[in-house]
């Protein structure tokens, strides 16, 4: 496998729920070593795309290549095993289980205990404030902390690609900055990132490349700094 194979390459994806089409002919590429963002308003199909990539929603047409392998009809657990990490919309922590159990479940698909223990330490280094609360039920954390836990849980799976679905929604501005900084740190650790966001300003300012999704179609794709200056994007998504 040559090193310039994109981490994720999806083409011609059509998907929906029952007879209701949500995604129409969507194509997205995440190059190795990059942070890619997909911005769009509520209902544009962003979360559906995450579910399609994660194997939770079967596309009716199109292909998904992950690390060079065709993963179009893989089950979610197979995608995770292949190196996909998901931080779902709404965080979806196991609220009644302790923080430690949530992190252990993040490593469910792995078997190498030493590597898991190392990653456990590494994740706690990234989120030092979590260390003293390992036996606290995840549901009792604040919104911002729950977002950190959701990211930490996904990192416990040692992903090659991390999908983040609206990680800044509902968070205080100072926490949004923290999440944005974290995404940079995670990227520096060698994890590629696909960031799905409504908050286009934050997303485009930390991404290398951006896509704009409108009613299930990709309507714009360019370098993130170019999109940030695009008048249409400015008007529709940046409130300028």
């Amino acid at each position, binding site marked *: 496998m040559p090193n310039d194979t994109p981490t994720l390459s999806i083409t011609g994806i059509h998907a929906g729920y029952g007879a209701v089409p949500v995604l129409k002919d969507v194509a997205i590429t995440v190059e190795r070593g990059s942070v890619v963002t997909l911005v769009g308003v509520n209902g544009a199909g962003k979360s559906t795309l995450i579910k399609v990539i*994660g*194997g*939770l929603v079967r596309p009716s047409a199109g292909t998904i290549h992950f690390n060079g392998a065709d993963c179009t009809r893989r*089950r*979610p*657990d197979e995608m*995770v*095993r292949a190196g996909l990490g*998901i931080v*779902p919309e709404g965080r*979806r*922590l*196991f*609220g*009644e*289980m302790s923080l430690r*159990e949530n992190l*252990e*479940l*993040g490593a*469910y*698909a792995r078997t190498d205990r030493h590597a898991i223990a190392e990653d456990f330490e590494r994740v706690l280094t990234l989120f030092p404030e979590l260390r003293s609360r390992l036996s606290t039920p995840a549901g009792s954390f604040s919104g911002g902390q729950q977002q950190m836990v959701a990211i930490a*849980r*996904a990192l416990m*799976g040692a992903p090659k690609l991390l999908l983040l679905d609206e990680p800044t929604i509902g968070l205080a501005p100072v926490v949004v900055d923290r999440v944005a900084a974290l995404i940079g740190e995670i990227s520096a650790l060698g994890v590629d990132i696909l960031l799905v966001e409504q908050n286009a300003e934050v997303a485009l300012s930390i991404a290398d490349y951006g896509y704009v999704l409108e009613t299930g179609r990709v309507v714009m794709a360019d370098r993130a700094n170019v999109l940030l200056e695009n008048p249409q994007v400015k008007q529709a998504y940046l409130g300028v």
Partner: protein
Amino acid sequence: MQHVIQLGATALQIGAVYILFSLGLTLIFGVMRIVNFVHGHIFAIAALVVASLLPRLVEGGFAAPTAYVLASLAGIGAALGLGALIYFFGFRHFQRDLVGSFILSIGFVLMLDGVLLSLFGGSVRGVPEIFPGTLSVAGAQITMQRLFLCAVAFLMAAILYWALAHTKLGKALRAVAYDHEAAMMVGVPYGRIAFLGFLIASFLAALAGALLAPVTIVSPVIGTDYLIKGFIAVIIGGLGSVPGAILGSFFVACIETVGGYYLDSSYASIAIFTLVIVVLLFWPKGVLGRG
């Protein structure tokens, strides 16, 4: 005083069986969000296999305890086979579909009623005594067989409780019960976990059947009564909750025992159903239930 101890011991014995029964129902509901009315037949097939195999093994020269263990293994095996069959050809396709799984359940129940009747016949069977003797506690009499039943049932409940909290499979079962999509997104193979949960539940029901066979009269319809009582126990305790199932089982067993002693067993049944309504008025999701 003697009455109280005797009643307490009886409630404990009945409660032990209900616990095994209701733990399975609550586990299946938690993981697959379906109500499995076939659970009573899984219990029944284990009891029937034990009841029909045990006398033959004893006649064939086995010592009673050995014969009982062999017959129980066969009964549990048969029940697990049945459980796997109805999972693969039925419930696997109706997960998280309460109405669909309910209709499927009814179909299976009718079919298995016929199958069990034609395989084992309608006559009731007695099973020879396995562990003779009685234990006397402050004047109350408890047979060794029932003591054995209680001990195994409580041991199994404790093992399940421990395993759910501390093993990887247990954590996966809890994660799936809490949020199956989130569990899938961290790499838990949902299909395999649902199947294992169904098998564990079937095992608990089968174990209850094998334990109960020597102390009761076994017939193909034996499961129905336990299914209803076990179901009431999980409704009271809260569907999907393990401590709720245990609590509900004791509650039902106590009412049944006390009501049956002071009044009449038919009044006890009426009392149970009335109390279910009262409990649901105050706790619509059961005492320890959630979402």
